């Protein structure tokens, strides 16, 4: 087992480099997320923000650098100073403590809403089905979908599907939640209901990293805003600093385009 470093940091990433072939998507990115903090990453498409998020739970391998979640090295183990990819069982264990919400929901279409939520706690954590089912009903109530327990994904709207997906991730009792453009695939009138659930989570003190184009959410909910462009972090700080006292030209251009 890797050395566990206790600190107030939930996510600690150093000098992350990620390449797809010749294309460098992350070029030496550092990231620090404190416990209970909500970090929002903004930036134009192709800036690397989604890739960064996917590296945190090792859905993407990294070419160099180190990522720690809750003090534990993610996806790799250190052998004589070199990084080797970790055993699958270890990677899976680390992921089970990190919730991930996808842009396209990725609910399991052959299971109803309740079964979607119950699946992983039972199959991965070995929890009792009755106990998880009870918890799943509570989570469905929390995301406002008590009546939809038996509904299959294709009978749900995009907003409802995404709320089930959030409940599914929460059922694993994650210490960290990652949101990858959770509202980008939704019709405009359905964005609000998902953001509301995310706001509520933030208020409850959940540690969150959120990649989004919703500037209102970033402004109101974020403790820390990161602006990424062309594979690097250009600017970061409190929402007040990034939106109110923008330092960099690139950030200003981006925010200007969004405002239009």
């Amino acid at each position, binding site marked *: 087992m890797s050395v566990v470093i206790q600190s107030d940091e939930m996510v600690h990433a150093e000098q992350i480099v990620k390449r797809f072939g010749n294309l460098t998507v992350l070029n030496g990115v550092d990231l620090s997320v404190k416990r209970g903090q909500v970090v929002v990453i903004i930036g134009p498409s192709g800036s690397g923000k989604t890739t960064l998020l996917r590296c945190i739970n090792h859905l993407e391998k990294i070419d160099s650098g180190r990522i720690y979640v809750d003090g534990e090295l993610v996806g790799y183990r250190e052998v004589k100073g070199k990084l080797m990819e970790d055993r699958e069982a270890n990677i899976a264990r680390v992921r089970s403590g990190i919730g991930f919400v996808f842009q396209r929901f990725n609910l399991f279409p052959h299971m109803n809403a309740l079964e979607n939520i119950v699946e992983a706690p039972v199959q991965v954590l070995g929890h009792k089905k009755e106990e998880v089912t009870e918890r799943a009903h509570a989570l469905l109530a929390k995301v406002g979908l008590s009546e939809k327990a038996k509904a299959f994904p294709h009978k749900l709207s995009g907003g409802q599907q995404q709320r089930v997906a959030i409940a*599914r991730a929460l059922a694993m009792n994650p210490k960290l939640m990652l949101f990858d453009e959770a509202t980008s695939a939704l019709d405009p009138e359905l964005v609000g209901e998902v953001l509301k659930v995310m706001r509520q989570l933030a208020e409850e003190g959940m540690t969150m990293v959120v990649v989004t184009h919703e500037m209102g959410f970033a402004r109101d909910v974020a403790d820390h805003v990161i602006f990424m462009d062309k594979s690097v972090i250009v600017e970061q700080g409190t929402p007040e600093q990034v939106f109110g006292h923008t330092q960099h030209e690139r950030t200003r251009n981006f925010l200007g385009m969004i405002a239009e």
Partner: protein
Amino acid sequence: MFRWDVVWQNLFSTPFVTAAWTTLWLSVVAQVIGVLLGLLLALMRMSRSPFLSLPARFYIWLFRGSPLLVQILILYTGIPELFHNQAVTTFLSAYVVILIAFSLNEGAYMAEIMRAGIESVDAGQMEAAKALGMRSSLGMRRIVLPQAARVIVPPLGNEFNNMLKTTSLASVIGLLELTGTAQTIGSISFTTFELLIVATAYYLLLTTLWGYTQNWIEKRLDPNRNQKVEVETKSLTTRMVGFGATRSK
């Protein structure tokens, strides 16, 4: 002259009932092994490691590219000749040869069907499974394969339908399944034509029963099956004269 009485006499005779049973169990066993082998080959073929994917490709190429009848004959006559070993010859009885040949051959076809099924499932499904802490084997079993099944089952059904009929090839090495039985008894009593009709009746019975079974399985795999869909079916009189009873399905 065609003798219907011979048909009726043989239709429920012990040799034909036994032969039908032989045809059925050979088909089921070979299909089950073929499905399992096909799954293994499909996973190997989709592997990123060439040590797994190349042998699988070679296997599929070999077995799909040569006739089953030739494969049966090679196993039945060629292999024993090669070894000149009594134990090998004894082991490779007609039943064993047929089971091996049919399973190996079916595995190659099922591999491609399985692969198409697995690849039809959105990559986001395995990602979601992994993000929830599942290992890929668990994600495959619980998330991907159940969804792939809906794509796999219709062609699998056709494969089994084919299998029921292709077992007739076993007659060339003297195995008494339906076709072999018809030929053997028929050549003694000069009633081959009549007995082939009997065999045909059994084949039709088996494939028809399988057709119903397949329908039932496909319905069960439909995710909408739990939803009661009210379909109003207009009765014949309603459609023809504009009034009458309506019934709900």
